[in-house]
């Protein structure tokens, strides 16, 4: 792999953005995570923050202590370092319990009908994939997971809901997510997850980070309630 596939652009007075490719993939997600880890080490206090996303990494630095030339060269070292490490860091594997049902997933029936599948098949297919955390954003703790099996991919609702409950497991196109807090939302709801996705009082405050892998496991109503789930 040649180094020039990594494109570094200016984002703002204190930010450079690194593009790793045109399409998200597990390979690129691993590269984004590795580059972020490397820059945290190499830039230290010069670094203000990082925003990893699908196929890019925003690098925010302190412009009073360093400049874009030095940060650019740190990014080049990071990407060069990637080429040499053949063993891919694959991120943690996190398992999230889901109570799938018509009661907890109000769009399950519609999604199954549109996909010409049974509800059981939709639930089985959603659990078969090992997802990658491609990005975190939109709201604190909102993790974008991909990619959803084509058979159960579904467009966003024409009219978003005013209120999606905390823990709602949802699908939009080829992405899936767990709503960390009640919020408006237009994704298709297929179940509820009792595990908090964002808890400011906990360390860490999120069970996943960008680059991690996620699997969903079906639980029944009793287990959901026993794990603290609310209906």
């Amino acid at each position: 792999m040649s180094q020039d596939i990594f494109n570094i652009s200016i984002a703002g007075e204190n930010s450079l953005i690194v593009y790793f490719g045109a399409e998200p993939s597990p390979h690129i997600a691993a590269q984004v995570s590795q580059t972020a880890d490397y820059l945290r080490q190499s830039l230290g206090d010069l670094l203000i923050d990082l925003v990893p996303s699908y196929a890019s990494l925003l690098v925010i630095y302190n412009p009073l202590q360093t400049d874009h030339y030095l940060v650019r060269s740190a990014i080049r070292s990071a990407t060069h370092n990637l080429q040499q490490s053949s063993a891919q860091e694959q991120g943690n594997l996190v398992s999230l319990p889901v109570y799938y049902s018509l009661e907890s997933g109000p769009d399950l029936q519609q999604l199954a009908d549109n996909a010409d599948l049974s509800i059981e098949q939709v639930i089985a297919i959603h659990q078969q994939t090992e997802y990658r955390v491609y990005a975190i954003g939109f709201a604190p703790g909102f993790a974008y997971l991909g990619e959803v099996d084509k058979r159960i991919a579904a467009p966003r609702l024409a009219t978003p809901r005013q209120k999606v409950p905390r823990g709602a497991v949802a699908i939009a196109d080829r992405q899936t997510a767990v709503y960390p807090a009640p919020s408006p939302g237009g994704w298709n709801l297929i179940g509820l997850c009792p595990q908090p996705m964002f808890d400011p009082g906990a360390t860490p405050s999120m069970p996943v980070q960008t680059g991690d892998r996620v699997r969903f496991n079906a639980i029944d109503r009793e287990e959901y309630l026993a794990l603290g789930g609310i209906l």
Partner: protein
Amino acid sequence: MGGFKVIQPGIYSLLQDAGRFGWHGIGLTTGGPMDRQAFRLANKLCGNNDDSAAIEVTVGGLVLDAKNHSSIAVTGADIPLTINSKPVPLWRTHHVTPGDRIELGYASKGSRGYLAVAGGFQAEAIFDSLATVCRESLGGLHQDGQPLKADDILACPESDQQPRLLSVPENLRPDNNGTATIRVILGYQQHAFTEVQKQLFFSSEYALTNSCDRMGYRLSGAQITPSIGGILSEGICLGAIQVPADGQPIILLRDRQTIGGYPKLGSVLSLDLDRLAQLVPGDTLRFEAISIDEAHNALLLAEQKFASTKLETVDV
């Protein structure tokens, strides 16, 4: 511990420190003062660090009762300030004693004022900061992202030694009149905008619309069209100028979302965001392109100027 009681919270008054940094990875924005320069000067007048918490008052209406001896300063927008009904000037420190009533009227020019107190307002930090971000339900007096409300008690250290009364020299006070020239560093998807589109952007006057909050300012003016509709969601830095399908730019500010998928032309120099923060809907602005090196020079010069700013001692 001394303190203040909120008698009337005003239109929208938020506890803000320098901001919440290092938490973009879990989707948290930074928050922090919309007019950073005015915020820092208010703190400097009170002998505080830059990251001490002050109150950002939008438009005005805040009324506080002092519970203890302290010193305060108000900077930013032109907001009438009275202590015990007596008009007193902005941009300088004032001593307050228990029972004093501090009243802010409504801005005649500009839109955001900063009220700082010696020692800074104290509250429990969440994710290392007191910055109030309503959209995230984080920060502020009760860590829940809510604006100040009547009967809130704001704690601050009691000042035994009366610090000197200080004033910001006239020539260092910004003039918040109705038009602004905003410097822009081209970047991000700038190549998705043709030279003609960029020329149009930099030669046109834009007006601030009513859609302006701490998250972003939507402008209206010449429509500019990127050659691409959307991009894979990516990190958004402070001041990023995104251009949605309607061609009307949106400048993303302190409470911006951390990632998004609209094409971006570049980002506004943070020094000019202070100016932008004081505009009101209908005010006009123009853009001027600068290089990243010019941006760094401007930042270093501004920092040097701030560090060497000598506040004047007020004769009492």
